[in-house]
C-alpha cells in the first residue's frame, strides 16, 4: 500500500532550517495497522501529512498503491485523496454549520455522488457507528466521543483503502477512547489499512507494528 524511501522534509525560514524528517524509509502492506510513536516534535504529524498527500516531501520517494506521488501538485494530490484516504483528527475537525449526516457525507459530495446515494451510504455508516439517533444534530450538540465517531464515519464513508488517524483518542476519556480504538480495529479487520499517530502505548497496542520516530528518523520498528 505504502512505500516510503529516504523521505526528507525540511522547513526553511529566513533564519532557520528545520529537518522534520530525515531519510525515513518504511513500507506498509495492505490491511496493516501501523502505529507511529515518538516524542513531541519528532515529525510524526509531518509524516502523516505526507502520507495523506496533504504535503509534499522535500526529497525522497513516496509510492501509494504503486504510484509515485511525492512530487504531485495540489490538484493531483486532491484528486488522488478522494475516495482513497480517510482522515481522523485529534480535534475531530467537524464543520460547525453542517449536521452529523452532512458532515459524514462530505467526502462523497466532492466525489460527485448523487444526493440519494449519499444519503443511503451515510445512513448505513451512521448505523454502523451507532450515531443514527443524532443524525440532525450539529457538532456543538455532541459529546467528544460522539464527535469522534462522526469523524470516523466521515473517514470511512467513501470506502477508503487507507485511514490516517492523528491521535484519535487524544481528546477523549478512556471509555470513549476505547470505543474509538475498537472501531478502528474493526475497520482494520475488515481490510482497511490504518496508520495511526499516537502517544499512548495502550492505543499503540492495537496496531500490528509500531514505528518509533525520534528527531525525524526512524529509530525502531517493533512488530506486535
Amino acid at each position, binding site marked *: 500500500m505504502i512505500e516510503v524511501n529516504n523521505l526528507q522534509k525540511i522547513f526553511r525560514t529566513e533564519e532557520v532550517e528545520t529537518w522534520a524528517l530525515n531519510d525515513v524509509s518504511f513500507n506498509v502492506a495492505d490491511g496493516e495497522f501501523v502505529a507511529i510513536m515518538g516524542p513531541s516534535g519528532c515529525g510524526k504529524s509531518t509524516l502523516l501529512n505526507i502520507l495523506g498527500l*496533504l504535503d509534499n516531501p522535500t526529497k525522497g520517494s513516496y509510492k501509494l498503491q504503486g504510484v509515485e506521488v511525492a512530487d504531485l501538485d*495540489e*490538484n493531483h494530490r486532491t484528486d488522488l*485523496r478522494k475516495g482513497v484516504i480517510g*482522515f481522523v483528527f485529534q480535534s475531530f*475537525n467537524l464543520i460547525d454549520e453542517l449536521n452529523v449526516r452532512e458532515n459524514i457525507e462530505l467526502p462523497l*459530495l*466532492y466525489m460527485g455522488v448523487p444526493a440519494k446515494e449519499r444519503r443511503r451510504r451515510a445512513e448505513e455508516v451512521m448505523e454502523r457507528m451507532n450515531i443514527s439517533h443524532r443524525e440532525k444534530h450539529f457538532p456543538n450538540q455532541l459529546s467528544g466521543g460522539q464527535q469522534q465517531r462522526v469523524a470516523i464515519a466521515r473517514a470511512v464513508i467513501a470506502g477508503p483503502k487507507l485511514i490516517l488517524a492523528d491521535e484519535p483518542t487524544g481528546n477523549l476519556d478512556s471509555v470513549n477512547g476505547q470505543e474509538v480504538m475498537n472501531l478502528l480495529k474493526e475497520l482494520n479487520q475488515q481490510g482497511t489499512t490504518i496508520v495511526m499517530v499516537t502517544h499512548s502505548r495502550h492505543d499503540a497496542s492495537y496496531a500490528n507494528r509500531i514505528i518509533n520516530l525520534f528527531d525525524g528518523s526512524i529509530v525502531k520498528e517493533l512488530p506486535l
Partner: protein
Amino acid sequence: MFLHYLKMAFRSLGKYRMQNLISIVSLAVALFCFSINMYLSRFMIQVDNWLDDRVVFMTDVNGGSSVNFDLAKEITAQRPEIEALVRFNPYVRSSWKKADDKSSIANTDYFIHTDTTLLDVLGLKLIAGNWKSVCNTNAKHCLALSESFARKQYGSADAAVGQEILIEELGVVTVQAVVQDLPFANSIMNFEYAAGWMFSKDEEFLSGRRLGYVWVKLKEGIDSETFCNTPYSVWLDDERAISSDSYWNLKDKDINIGGGIKFTTRSPGKTGKSDMGFWKFSLSLLLVSLPGILILIVALFNYFHLLVNSILSNRREYALRRVHGANTADMWRMVSTQIVVVTILTGFLSLFIARYVTPMIRVADSQGPGVTQFFMDTNVIIKHTLEYIVLLVAAGLLIAWIAVTRVRRADISGTLKRSYGGRNFMLGVQLTVAQLMITLLVALLLKMRSNLTEPYSWLSKEDKTCIITDRIRYDDRSMMDPEISYLKSLPYITHAVCMYNEHLEGSTLNTEFNTLGYSNETDCYRTFIDAEKMDMLGVRIREGRMPVRSTEIMVDDQFTERFRLDIGDTLKVRDFMRNYPDADYIFTGDETAWVPLVIVGHIDNLLDKSILTTGYYSSIQHPSIYCNWKVLSGFVVVRCLPGYQKEAKEAIARYHNPDFNEGDYHMAMSLYDYMDQNNSIWHSIGFIAWTVAIIAFIITLLGIYSAISIDTTRRRREMAVRKINGARKRNITMLFANLYVKLFIISSVISIPISAFLIKVAILNNRPFEKGAGYAILFYLFILLIMVVFVSLTIGFKIGRISRENPADVVKSE
C-alpha cells in the same frame, strides 16, 4: 452540489444574523440613493445630445435662458445664418378639460405655447395627424399632443387626433396632431414635460408675456461653434418698444428695448444654464442622493469587511473541505453562492425601496418645477438599481476569488490546528471611512440649513413678524397704489410698500478696486430700496445717505468686506436686456459702455434679511447693490402693529375679495410664510436629505457595531484564556479599549485633515457671497465623541456578555 452551497449560504447568514442584516439593509438603502444620483449624472451627460448640431439655443449675454420674443424675431431677420426659429412660452396657465365629459386634463403647466416650426427646428417626428392642418388652420388656436400623453388620455395616438379640448379663456380647441415626446434629457423646456403644444396665430402668441425660450436652426454649412462664439446685439425702435406688451410696462418714449444676444451650443455646461429650474432640480436631487453616495461607501465597507472576515475566519473549514477533496473551484463556488444570496436579498430590498420611495420623492418635489412628477421614472430607477446590483455581485465575486485563492495557499495541516485572531486593519479602515463620511455629511446638511432657511428665520421673531405680503403681483402701479393707500389708512398698519420681488437679473460689476483676487467682472444683483422699506425692515444706514440719483447706490457690509470699497468709490456696472433709467446705457454687447455708480451709503447686511431674494439659491452667491428707483411693479408688503396680524391679513384679503370669509387667508400671508412657501421645495428636500442622513448615520454606527461584534466574538477564546489566568472584566475591557483608542487616533489623524480640506473647499465656503455654515474643532470633536461613546457602549455590551460565560466552556467549545 448547488443545493449544498445554497444551504451553506443561508446557514452562514444565520451565523452572523445581526451583522448580515445590517449589511443587507444598509447596502439596499445605499444602492437606492446611489441609483438616484447616478440617474441625475447620466441624465446631465445626455442633455441635448439628441438635437441636430445646427440647432442652438438663444440666450441673453449672461446666459439667461429667457429672451424677449420681439428681439428674437428681429435678430433672426437680421442674421443670414439663421434658417428658422421656434419659440416656447411655458407659462401659460388655464383650465384644460376634455370637451365631451368635462373631465380635467393633467396639470396645465405642461402645455407649451410654441411656433409651427416646432418639428422642423427640433427634429421631432409627427406620430399622427396632419401637420399641414396645424400650420394652415384658420382656427385661432390648435393643438398637438405629445405621444405618451395622447396614449394615456385617449388610448392611442390616432384616437387623440380630432379630439376636442375645452380651454378656459380660449374655448374649444381641436387636437390636430400627435408628435414624438420631447426627450427628457433636454434643456428645451427647462425639464418641464411637454404634454402638448399649443399653436396660435402670431399676434395671439404669448399675449401678456413676451419672454420665453428660443431655439434657432442654422443653415446648412454654418459652423455652430463659430456662430455661438460671436456676441450679437439688437434693439427695437421706440415705436415697437411702446407697442410690444413687454414685461415692463414701458411708457417712456425715451426708452428702447434692446440688448445683447448670444447663442450656445448644446454641450452640457453651456446648454441651458438657465434659470433656477434646472439647477434647483439638479441640486435637489444632489442633496437627496449625496448622503446616499456617502453611505454607499460605508455600506460597501461593511459588506466587504464582513465578507472577507467570513472567508478568513472559515479557513479551518476550507482546509477541511480541501482535505476531503474540494479544490479551489469548489471553494469559490461555495463562497460565490453566499455572495449571490446576500446580493439578491439586498437587491430585492433595494428594488422595494425604489418602487415605493421614488414616488415619495416626486410628491416631495410637487411644489418645484414639476419635472420630477414625470422625470423621476420609477421603472428607470429600478432598471438602474438592477444594473448596480449586477456590478455589486461582480465586485463581490472578485473579492471572493482573491480571498479564496489566498486561503488556498495556506498549509492545510497548520490551518486545521490554528484559530485566528481579529483583522484590525480592516476595522481601522472602516472607522476612518465612517468618520470621514459622517463629517462630510453633517457639514453638507449644516450648510444647506444655513443657506436655505436660516436667512429668513429672523422673520419669525414676534416683533418682526408683523410683515404681511399680498401675494398678488402687480405689473401696474396704477393698480398697486390705491391698495397701498388704503392699507396705510388703517390704524394698525404702520407701513405699506411695493417690494420689487421678481427675478433679480444679473448685472456685471466691474469693481476696479478688486484687491482680493476675484475676477474684475463679477455678477451682481440690484435690489430696489427706499427709506420706507428700510424702516419697515429695520435696516439701518450705517454710514452715508440714501441714493437719490439713479447712478448712486448703497452697499452692505458683506460687499464692503469683499471688495474693500468705501463711500465715494465708484463702481461700474452694465446691464443686459433691460431698460435703464439712463437710455444711453442700454447694453448691446461687449462694446457697451459701463455705467459709473457712486457709493453713497452703507447699510446693514440684507443677506440675512433675504426677503428680497425670495429663496432663489443662486442669488446669495453674488453681491448686491442697492438702488433707489421708482419701483415699477412687485408685491405689496405691509407691516402691522404687534398682535394685529389677523386683522392685517383680513384687510388685504377683503380688499381683493369683498365676500371674504373669516379664515380665508389665501391671498394674504405673513412674509415668513411666504418665504417658507417659496422655500417649500427646500423644506421637502431638506426633510428627505435629513432623513437619508439619519439613516446613513445609523447604518454607519451599525456597521461599526457589526465589525466590533465580529472582532469580540472571534476573540472569545482569547478572553476566556485571559480570564482563566486571572484577568477581570475590567482588564479585558481595557484591552479592547486600548486597541480601539489607537484605531480612533489613527483614523482621526487620517480623516480629520481630509474632511477639513474637502469641507473647506467643496462644501462650506466655496462661493464668495454664500453664507458660510462655519466649522470649528468642536465640530469634529462632537462627531468623534458620538463615535467613541457608541463604540464604548458596544464593547461594554459585548464583553459584558462574553465575560458572563464560563471560560472553561468557551475554551473547550472554541
